[in-house]
């Protein structure tokens, strides 16, 4: 960390502080409760990892939810079979999702562009369908995999007798509920951010950017690009698996719907919305989407009726009917619309917006002293 360039260090510290103080600055937005904040951390981590593949190499995976789901299942199994402690569950999830990503990446990366995307999508949908069919002994099908009072938990049994109720996940004996759960996830998001930052700033990261920029040139420059993209694929798959395991730890239920294509699409949206290729962008994209999902999906017709009440009769009814399509279950429609607007008007995402505003301010600030400078400087 001492060798970190100053700007990177500042970015890291800024990010860490922003994350850790979230319970404070999210309060005015009504989002400062652990359950939602935890989801911010988990999906932030998911998007951060997705960006290592998509943002750096340009390979657009449409199947990353598969690794997220696999991470969840692996974590729950670890908590069922070994111990209720979170750390072994996370390690197990990292290993399993890494192996899974290695296999899928190895095949999918034989193609690039749209064919790569379709291959990843196909693999993820296959995993999703398998989870509902032949793999039900592992996934428990539609019910989802849960902790059970009769779980063996062999490691725990070696040290203590069975508990009378279903235990909830802990870390070294500390129950991961409420804000403890949030800080637990926040810690991993910060570590993951640090690692992503190191990868981005390393020679390896520059190779990935080279692949995105001009893969042909990379080949004629002497690089075997396949292992580079595979490494990026596995790393981002492991990020997804870690995020999935955190979700399983804070809410010990793993269901196959986490692997569905909508979940894969969501992380693509988060990354592009925030700004693919930037470090902070995808995390912010994840936060925004989870925040508005939380708000929009909670709105129902009664609330809309009250909101549109000021309109004349008949018109208010129409307004309710139309706007109801965009809330509740229709939240995805809103998300889709926002996404279209972003891609059309701000293809670099929110981070591009920030950059544009910053350079606009910069220009305005520069133009003022420039017009004043002839007075202060002596004639040449």
């Amino acid at each position, binding site marked *: 960390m001492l060798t*970190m360039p100053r700007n990177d260090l500042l970015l890291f510290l800024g990010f860490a502080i922003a994350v850790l103080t979230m319970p404070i600055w999210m309060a005015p937005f009504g989002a400062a409760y652990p359950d939602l904040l935890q989801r911010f951390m988990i999906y932030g981590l998911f998007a951060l990892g997705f960006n290592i593949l998509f943002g750096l190499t340009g390979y657009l995976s449409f199947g990353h939810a598969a690794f997220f789901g696999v991470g969840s299942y692996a974590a729950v199994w670890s908590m069922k079979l070994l111990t209720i402690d979170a750390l072994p569950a996370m390690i197990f999830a990292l290993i399993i999702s890494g192996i899974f990503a290695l296999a899928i990446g190895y095949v999918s990366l034989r193609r690039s562009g749209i064919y790569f995307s379709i291959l990843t999508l196909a693999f993820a949908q296959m995993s999703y369908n398998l989870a509902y069919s032949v793999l039900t002994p592992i996934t428990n099908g539609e019910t989802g995999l849960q902790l059970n009072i009769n779980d063996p938990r062999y490691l725990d049994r070696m040290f203590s007798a069975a508990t009378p109720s279903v235990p909830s996940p802990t870390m070294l004996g500390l129950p991961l509920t409420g804000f403890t759960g949030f800080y637990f996830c926040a810690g991993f998001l910060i570590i993951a951010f640090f690692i992503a930052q190191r*990868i981005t700033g390393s020679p390896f990261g*520059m190779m990935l950017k080279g692949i995105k920029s001009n893969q042909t040139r*990379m080949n004629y420059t*002497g690089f*075997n690009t396949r292992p580079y993209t595979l490494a990026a694929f596995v790393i981002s798959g492991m990020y997804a698996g870690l995020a999935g395991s955190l979700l399983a730890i804070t809410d010990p239920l793993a269901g196959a719907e986490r692997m569905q294509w909508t979940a894969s699409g969501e992380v693509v949206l988060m990354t592009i919305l925030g700004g693919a290729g930037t470090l902070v962008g995808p995390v912010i994209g994840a936060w925004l989407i989870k925040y508005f999902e939380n708000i929009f999906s909670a709105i129902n017709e009664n609330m809309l009726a009250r909101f549109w009440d000021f309109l004349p009769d008949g018109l208010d009814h129409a307004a309710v009917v139309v706007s109801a399509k965009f809330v509740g279950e229709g939240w995805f429609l809103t998300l889709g619309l926002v996404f279209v607007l972003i891609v059309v008007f701000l293809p670099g995402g929110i981070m591009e917006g920030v950059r544009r505003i910053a350079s606009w301010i910069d220009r305005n600030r520069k133009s003022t002293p420039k017009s004043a400078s002839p007075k202060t400087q002596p004639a040449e």
Partner: protein
Amino acid sequence: MTNSNVVLHVADVHKRFGGLHALADIDLQVEEGQTHAIIGPNGAGKSTLLNVIIGKLAPTSGAVVFDGTVLTGKKPYQINQLGIARVFQTPEIFADLSVLQNVMIPALAKRDGAFKLNMLRTLESETEIRAEAEHMLEDVGMISRREMAAGSLSRGDKRRMELAMCLIQRPRLLLLDEPTAGMSRHDTNTTIELLKKIKSRGMTKVIIEHDMHVVFSLADKISVLAQGRIIADGTPDQVRGNPKVQEAYLGGAH
């Protein structure tokens, strides 16, 4: 016929694109340390020949041998790692990256090989590679542009940078596909000087060029290609006086 000084031997290469016989019975020997120019009218097959050498295209028949190693069937990255670098006719660069990074990447390929999981270091700590890249940019007169995005360079500067990307690898064989196209007279002369300088360091070069001023100031040997065939080769003086060459050029011009 094979001479011990020959580093590159293109042996009886044919290349067909459907009905088009783009390369017909090409036999070319390039000697160590020499600059071998390939000239010929548009569409003669010059770029195709380079594509076959660097493994972008597989020949329909025949083989390419570099320093005793058969290149045919090898992947482009393997061919580069053997010491062959190429400047393309349309610059192949990393448009989104800075000029300095464009030059650092090939230097890392030379040092680290085809694949290395180099995640623990930062770019800033690669001081040697950075210094080497800056030195290279000074050589091609582009040091002042090192922080610019490569995509925003002028056409001539892109070529110069691409040349720097190749030279930093200190390849044994450098292939140049019209390296001065799009350059001003001044930049062309600078590039000629640079190419002369690296020649004195013993680098073997194959150069495709339309500009006869460039060809005659650099080449030791010239091969003339027309419609996929070598119609003449020899020293610049031999080629200059060859009536077939003049005919091919006039034919190509019409």
